[in-house]
């Protein structure tokens, strides 16, 4: 149990995320089949396995370099909506991580907040549009609120908020992304991107929990 994450810990997070997304590939794809185009699981698994390989091949010097590598790798391997959005999240996070050898809860909160802002700027989604923003927004708020608590606890709170946000997408009618084409028929289904956002935050919390 640590109070801040260094490059090794962040790498462990992303390795874990890659494993989780590989395991959850079929479920994410099924969620995307219902209201999208059946590729979210495959896209995310492909992107994060590329991230894990990239980090293993050339370990970055600090969190900022790591986030930049992650962002660039996601952008060039995921494609679809998720690629630029998650890529932007990590690139924006890299900006906030610059100069920091490790990231504590407030620093991670700042990174995540900047990442979310980047996603919103790119994708123009508002809360309640049934997107990953509905998982990430509550997670950022929770992490902010818990930034004074020990890191594992703060990240657990963020993951729990993401999970609640993810579940809350079920009744929503989508207004952004592919699901919006379905109009009212999109209600009753959980958003795949909100789900992958939760999985990423859960992997982060689990990593911090050791």
């Amino acid at each position, binding site marked *: 149990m640590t109070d801040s994450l260094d490059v090794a810990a962040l790498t462990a997070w992303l390795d874990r995320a890659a494993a989780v997304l590989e395991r959850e590939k079929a479920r994410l794809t099924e969620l995307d089949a219902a209201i999208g185009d059946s590729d979210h699981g495959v896209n995310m698994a492909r992107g994060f396995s590329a991230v894990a390989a990239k980090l293993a091949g050339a370990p970055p010097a600090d969190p900022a370099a790591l986030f930049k590598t992650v962002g660039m790798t996601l952008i060039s391997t995921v494609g679809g909506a998720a690629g630029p959005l998650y890529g932007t999240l990590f690139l924006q996070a890299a900006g906030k991580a610059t100069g920091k050898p490790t990231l504590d809860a407030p620093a991670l909160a700042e990174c995540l907040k900047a990442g979310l802002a980047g996603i919103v700027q790119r994708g123009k989604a508002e809360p309640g549009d049934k997107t990953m923003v509905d998982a990430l927004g509550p997670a950022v708020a929770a992490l902010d609120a818990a930034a004074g608590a020990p890191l594992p606890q703060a990240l657990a709170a963020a993951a729990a908020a993401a999970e609640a946000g993810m579940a809350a997408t079920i009744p929503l009618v989508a207004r*952004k992304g592919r699901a919006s084409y379905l109009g009212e028929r999109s209600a009753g289904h959980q958003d795949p991107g909100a789900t992958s956002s939760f999985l990423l935050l859960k992997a982060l919390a689990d990593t911090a929990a050791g």
Partner: protein
Amino acid sequence: MKKLINAPEAVVAEALAGMAAAHPGLIRVQTDPAFVVRADAPVRGKVGLVSGGGSGHEPMHGGFVGRGMLDAACPGAVFTSPTPDQMLAAAKAVDGGAGILFIVKNYTGDVMNFEMAAELAAAEGLTVDSVVIDDDVAVKDSLYTAGRRGVATTVLAEKICGGAAEAGQPLAAVADLCRRVNANGRSMGMALTACTVPHAGKPSFTLADDEMEIGIGIHGEPGRRRVPLEPADRVAEMLMEPVIEDLPFGAGDEVLLFVNGMGGTPLIELYVLYRKAHEIAERHGLKVVRNLVGSYITSLEMAGASITLLRLDADMIRYWDAPVLTPALRWGA
């Protein structure tokens, strides 16, 4: 899942390798990042036309690369937008000094990836303009949503703008023409069956034997509504009505009527559909002066069809008729 493939993760690369082997005189296929580029690119002094999108819509876009149409196409994974590095590499490969036009179908992923690519290209000193195609009347347009999808009008835009670029038109004129094509093109699609994304391994949705889906897009997504199966003539009405009702068609207009197959529908059925669509167009006073019948923008092996009407102006007709020499569309050359 019954497909003539080897493995889901290999489909796109192997199909591209097949295209490269089949059409060495017309195109080259680059890997890492992947794009299809016309054999003689870059063409000096010509606007470079670049499009792309998820795979699974063949022959679009790779089959439209060649003289008189696209300079390059970027294939993504099945139903997944390609990435900015593909688009940037393609843009560089076709830059003939007259600028680059990105033709982008309106999907969040495509739009964002092409946007990023345009930013990267601009940073590298390339002149890039982008036109987003959003012709699918099945989707209600709204400021608050992702907007209409880009579907079959894309094929027409690529051909017409390809003709204009080949004729030496400058970037601003080609981009303007592309926006005019988009503003005057409307489409609507339907499905008899769903398709199966190779990685997913099972159909995106299921339809009973007596059901069809109206207002589908080209990504195996469910449509706006599920209705009882109807005869082809009634289907033609169901697709033509919303297209014609939507702006900007009026009696006396000259139009191109495009009946497109979704991949699993045989040509005999497309002609049955065309017959009625043509009749309906004429009943509304539209003059069908050009047409296209075939499977040009598909959704894997989905059975179904879409109908597109494009109101033509003189430029559009001239550049539609201009020679084209690509794997999938070829005339006058």
